């Protein structure tokens, strides 16, 4: 049971850090490999506020999201928007460039060591429930993750903003003709994606750590979730994250010899069977 619980928690964590990418890559069709850089930014904002200014952990999260969203808006206005129509390869190269720059910048300001994180007492420790050891922080992650999934699903599928976003992605010209301000929708969506990245980055420090190499170390995980879940699909990302998280943790627990292998195997196997991902719409572009 404990293993299963840890698997679910690690799946939710995967979901939290990659759902922002599912928004930018899936909904806006932009291969943003620099997603991890925004997650790292969120992580550093959280750590700095917590350790230097003694802001409570939970209060740092919204601040991290706002800072990253602002950075996202600035970059979207100046650079990203130029590449919306470009090939995936160009977008990959551009965002790898951003990743390299973010690593050096983080190194310059914070040094190359792991950042310490002091959790509030109520999120520390673990308790015993239904035959499993439940870590308080992991339970917290699961609650946040599920709440976020519900909220996002509602935002994309149930609101006017979600409808204009989907219209703007599927056919920008027709959307403009209907009076949708495509530019503004894209900026807002990109800001949302980066804010989610920052939230995931900040929440992930406890389990993943935080150092300047963060964007490159975890790039693979973000992309795997989106690729397996199918792009532009909140539910798909959640289910894919859970599958991958559980497979990863169970794999490492029961067959440690091939532990880290499992997650890639699941991805490649999924993509062979379903190139669009588990819940992907057939490719639009």
């Amino acid at each position, binding site marked *: 049971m404990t293993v299963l619980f840890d698997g679910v928690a690690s799946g939710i964590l995967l979901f939290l850090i990659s759902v922002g990418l599912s928004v930018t890559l899936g909904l806006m069709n932009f291969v943003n490999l620099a997603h991890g850089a925004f997650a790292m930014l969120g992580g550093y904002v959280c750590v700095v506020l917590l350790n230097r200014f003694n802001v409570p952990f939970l209060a740092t999260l919204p601040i991290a999201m706002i800072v990253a969203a602002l950075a996202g808006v600035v970059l979207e206005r100046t*650079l990203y928007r130029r590449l919306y129509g470009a090939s*995936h*390869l160009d977008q990959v*190269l*551009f965002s790898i460039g951003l990743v*390299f720059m973010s690593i050096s910048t983080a190194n310059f300001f914070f040094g190359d060591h792991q950042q310490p994180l002091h959790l509030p007492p109520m999120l520390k420790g673990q308790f015993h429930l239904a035959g499993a050891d439940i870590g308080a922080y992991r339970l917290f992650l699961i609650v946040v993750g599920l709440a976020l999934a519900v909220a996002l699903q509602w935002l994309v599928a149930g609101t006017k903003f979600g409808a204009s976003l989907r219209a703007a992605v599927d056919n920008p010209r027709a959307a403009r003709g209907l009076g949708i301000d495509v530019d503004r929708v894209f900026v807002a969506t990109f800001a949302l994606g980066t804010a989610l990245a920052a939230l995931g980055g900040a929440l992930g420090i406890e389990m993943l750590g935080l150092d300047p190499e963060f964007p490159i170390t975890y790039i693979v995980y973000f*992309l795997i979730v989106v690729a397996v879940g199918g792009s532009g699909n909140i539910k798909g990302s959640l289910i894919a994250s859970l599958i991958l998280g559980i497979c990863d943790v169970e794999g490492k627990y029961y067959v440690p010899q091939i532990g880290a292998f499992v997650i*890639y195997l699941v991805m490649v196997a999924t*993509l062979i069977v379903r190139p669009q991902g588990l819940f992907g719409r057939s490719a639009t572009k």
Partner: protein
Amino acid sequence: MSLTFDNTRSRRAANWHTAEYGFWMLPIVAYFVFPENLALLSQIAITALFAVSLDLILGYAGIVSLGHAAFFGVGAYAAGLLAQAGWGDPILGLACAGVVAGLVGWITSFLVLRGTDLTRLMVTMGVASMLYVSANKLTGITGGLDGMQGVDMKPLFGQFAFDLYGKTAYIYCVAVLFILFWLARRIVHSPFGLSLQGIRQNVFRMPALGTPVNARLIAVYTLGAVYAGIAGGLLTQTTQFVSIDVLSFSRSAELLLILVLGGTGSLYGGILGAAIFMTMHNYLSDIDPQYWQFWLGLLLIFVVLFARGGIMGALRTVAKRLA
């Protein structure tokens, strides 16, 4: 191809241009001008060969890959293992590296055939990551994170030992690069190469011309893997060491950067990109070891936004102005 069509233009492109003869004088000149830097020059030649291998699949056939280091690494380990087992003949090692990497390339090519650019990026990256993780786990064979040691090379052709100054290594690398480049040049100007470019430009029209698209893509992907494997083998033999770094994601990403910096689809782009990138890397990381990545990232963004043709594109524009 039984079709008759006017192919004088492609014939002309297949002939060697004067500038190309001049270009291949450069490695010979470099040998005498920079005798202190032969180790770096050998690295450049190896990276250039690696870039040519990616250019074959990306620049000509249009297959995007974020995991080309997989084949480089497989070749590097294959050559290393063979030498460790006592078969230290360099040429035999290269052949082995090429064959093993080609086999891996052939098997994985079936995964790459399916899906869009994005799926290909993911699958290639996934394959490379799997190999990285395996190499990390199989410490008994690969040495894991500590790397593989005890790679003893026999003299080349039984005559020329690998010396401390890297003279033999340099000449060996450049010779291999030149021979394989010449072969690649023949291939891309053959009907086979032209059909690849056709596939890149319009994948739906090529079957109508009678081109078996999937078979061509499998063939070129395997060929690219063989080239990458040989480049990896060269690295093992000249450094007599294999680090797990040969399979890393950064190696794949850097290679993509090198090729785009130089310009895709010309074979020379990769070589120029490798020369400039490696030199820059060497000097920038001397001046500013911690932050050279920052300048690298900046350069990459600049190339994507403003100079998409890379160096070869810029050279072509200049040549057109002059003509």
